[in-house]
């Protein structure tokens, strides 16, 4: 097992002329909960998609557990996208069967008990479930795996505050302690106390990567407050709001 779970070197992704990621250098250790923080369009989703193998970089290198992105890394990465990704006719239990088949680290018993505590009936067809319930099912699928890396893309956006606490609690009580969780979000105040480390991503580059404790000690303010400072919208320079 490689000491560093994720390494990115000079990672660049260009769409046409516009770079979504511009020379990202990143190292993630194990057993950490890391926040990937940045405004919309900063490249968070692009970075996560590259780590999952859903996008190919234009330049630079990525290694997960020392391996380039491929079937092996996909087997140790558990990904929660910001959308629903299953066919409606399936039941939650069908999805569990699928995950059990493809992922050796999927714990079916855990998934069932998570459903029970989240109030989800796994034998229901997915298309009959409400949006919130479907999101819970996806969360269960992701967290019931004993993965080495959990990549959660905006898990709490568009969700009411009570549900947010719920989701964060679910993540905290279920993740693999030897693994690393990366949560991308722009709602920092909600997740700050859950994070070990924070990464600020601005215009496709890492402008900060430090532990939350260090940030609070060095800056004397919370990560949320620092974020607002770093990403303050410039009003009178004709910049982006």
């Amino acid at each position, binding site marked *: 097992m490689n000491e560093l779970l994720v390494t990115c070197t000079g990672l660049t992704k260009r769409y046409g002329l516009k770079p979504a990621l511009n020379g990202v250098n990143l190292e993630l250790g194990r*057993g*950490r*909960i890391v926040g990937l923080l940045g405004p919309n369009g900063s490249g968070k989703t692009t970075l996560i998609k590259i780590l999952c193998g859903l996008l190919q970089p234009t330049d630079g290198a990525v290694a997960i557990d020392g391996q380039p992105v491929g079937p092996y890394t996909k087997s140790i990465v558990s990904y929660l996208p910001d959308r629903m990704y299953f066919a409606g006719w399936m039941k939650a239990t069908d999805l569990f069967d699928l995950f059990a088949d493809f992922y050796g680290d999927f714990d079916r018993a855990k998934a069932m008990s998570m459903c029970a505590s989240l109030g989800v009936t796994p034998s229901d067809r997915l298309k009959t479930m409400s949006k919130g319930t479907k999101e819970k099912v996806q969360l269960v699928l992701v967290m019931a795996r004993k993965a080495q890396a959990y990549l959660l893309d905006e898990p709490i956006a568009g969700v009411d505050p009570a549900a947010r*606490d719920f989701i*964060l*609690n679910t993540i*905290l*009580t279920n993740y693999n*302690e030897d693994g690393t969780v990366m949560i991308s979000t722009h709602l920092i105040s909600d997740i700050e*106390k*859950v*994070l*070990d480390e924070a990464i600020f991503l601005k215009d496709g580059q890492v402008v900060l990567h430090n532990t*939350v*404790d260090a940030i*609070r*000690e060095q800056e*004397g*303010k*919370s990560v*949320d*407050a620092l974020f607002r400072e770093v990403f303050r919208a410039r009003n009178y320079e004709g910049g982006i709001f």
Partner: protein
Amino acid sequence: MDWVFTEDRPIWQQLMEQITLIILNGGYPPGSRLPAVRELAAQAGVNPNTMQRAMAQLEQKGLAVGSRTAGRTVTEDTAVIQAARRERAKAAVTSCLRILEELGYIREDALAIIKEELAHE
């Protein structure tokens, strides 16, 4: 229990203080088992590593005692607990005196106001 955190200080520090308070109030009696780090972290909604750091500090201060087999227990050393209580009280007083000073009450005036309030109890 409601965990309240402010923005300006590391969370592990605030956790340590709040757990200390519970111990001082008898919420975790001397000699009793403290909940597991992960469980407590989930309760407080914080990162387990952060909670671990807070607990480690409590151990360092002598308020908690770690053992390989039994996890962490609250110390039975009443002297330590008393010392912690005193320290907390002193901090409260210091803070109160600072506020009074900002308001213009120093020394005898401060003492006078405090005595007045005590008489009303």
